């Protein structure tokens, strides 16, 4: 319990510093522009449905989570952190607090989008069940994106490791083998090897892509449960890897 109280205090403190610094105005500004362009009803004939709402909002919220997490990681890399790290909160608690604030701001963004769309342009057949069905995987997506940004930040990984992980993510993210075939002959030994590696490293990222699809489609089946469990597993794995890496490295804040 002691450790949770310490992490909670650090999370509240970081959130309060973030809000008081005025950085949140950038998020609010972006939210207003997004709502004006994509969520308002331009004319009475234009009808928004839940799929359109979730498709647009998920992209917006996830992009904004990348921004928020990057800013928070940069705040965490400043010399102010030494005083906090000198406390019994510890390295894991420090990182967890930064992550939680990223997720909280991401969720707050999504909730505001939901509120705005409900007030100014209610989608057809809009109800709590439909909203909840898209919200659950989206919240996990926000957590995953925040965790990945944290992992790839300079605070957690050294430059060499970041390059390696980025390379793996880039390789795994290549959606089509056609891209390979234009550069490398797929039937060559090297091509086959690269393709196998791509498949292998792509497996962990599958929940991320499938989770996004589940958010927009909201069609629940046994496979959907597997996707949500996959999202949770990947989230826990990325967080654990980040904390293990941060726990072992030299901390040089500036």
């Amino acid at each position, binding site marked *: 319990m002691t450790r949770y109280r310490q992490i909670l*205090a650090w999370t509240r403190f970081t959130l309060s510093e973030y809000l008081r610094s005025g950085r949140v105005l950038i998020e609010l500004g972006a939210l207003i522009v997004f709502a004006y362009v994509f969520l308002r009803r331009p004319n009475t004939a234009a009808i928004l449905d839940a799929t359109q709402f979730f498709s647009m909002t998920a992209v917006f919220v996830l992009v904004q989570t990348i921004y928020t997490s990057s800013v928070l990681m940069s705040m965490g890399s400043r010399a102010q952190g030494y005083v906090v790290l*000198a406390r019994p909160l510890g390295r894991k608690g420090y990182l967890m607090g930064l992550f939680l604030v990223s997720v909280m701001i991401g969720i707050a963004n999504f909730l505001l989008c939901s509120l705005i769309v409900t007030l100014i342009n209610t989608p057809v057949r809009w109800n709590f069940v439909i909203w909840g069905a898209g919200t659950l995987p989206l919240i996990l997506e926000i957590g995953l994106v925040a965790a990945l940004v944290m992992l790839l930040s300079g605070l957690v990984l050294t430059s060499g490791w970041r390059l390696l992980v980025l390379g793996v993510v880039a390789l795994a993210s290549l959606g089509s083998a056609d891209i390979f075939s234009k550069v490398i002959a797929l039937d060559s030994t090297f091509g086959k090897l690269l393709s196998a590696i791509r498949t292998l490293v792509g497996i962990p990222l599958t929940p991320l892509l499938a989770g996004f699809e589940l958010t927009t489609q909201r069609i629940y089946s046994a496979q959907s449960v597997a996707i949500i469990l996959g999202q949770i597993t990947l989230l826990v794995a990325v967080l654990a890897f980040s904390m293990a890496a941060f726990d072992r490295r030299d901390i040089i804040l500036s």
Partner: protein
Amino acid sequence: MSAIYIEGLRKSYDMVPVLRGLSMSVDAGQVYGLLGPNGAGKSTLLHLMMGFLRPDAGRIEVLGLAPMAAHRQVGYLPERLRYHTHCSGREYLRYIGKFGDEHGAGLRDRITALLTLVGLEEAADRRMKTYSKGMLQRIGIAQALLSDPDLLLIDEPSSGLDPAGQVEMQELLLELRSRGHTIFLCSHQLDEITNVCDRVGILVRGELAAETSVANLPGTEGIVITLVEMPAEDLDYGLRALDPTITREGRRITIPVNTPPLQARLLQLLLDEGFTVASLQPTLGTLRDLYLHVVSGNIPPTEAAPQVTMPLLDTLLAEEENQ
């Protein structure tokens, strides 16, 4: 018991060695000052003691524990005046306390007491971004003392402060010393070290080049020999022949820059001439002298020779003054 024990400590950044097999210890209750030029490895050493950095080799024990395990008993003041400044001083201290799982009325009372100690009770509810450098440094001291630590690690407390701020900081450090805290202090302020510390070490290129107690700084400059008999002026010729810098004033002979061979030749001369030596006293160099000698590579012994004191000397000097 050693509050800090370091053995064979090595640390490099990108293959560039910063600490090269450093060994030292600081006793509990001691105020230890660490001097050294920029880049000597002082802040790196403090960061290793705090567990922010991992040693490449060697051993560090802080209060008998691994650095990370000792955080509850250690107060740390970082070098740079970088704090989260969007909150008030009181609020900042409350949060810092909560990161160590301190809370409730106990924490509130402690914060009030610390704000009084560092003289910030009136500014406690102002946002820290309105604080001067001196005030920020004092809030830094307050946060370091928040958990009533057994050991304080303080990095450049007077850095960036104006002369008045430096004096205030020194007074605060003296107050902490009087409260019996074990303090490890890195500083460039020689006066601060001299006035506050019991013991001083000088770190040069990652090695402890010199270490001594402040009360017994090495005689880096020379010696003063006092004779029992009043010598005739003839002796001056012999002294000048030995070394032109040697001077005599009554029964006192001064070698401004001493070396063991010169000292041996002078003593031989005095004995040959039939004089009795009442006392041989090293002239105590200042910390500045020691520091400059060590940093320039002219390293004196790590411990000063004990100062020679003789009751006869006081009698002779009193007689001389009466005459």
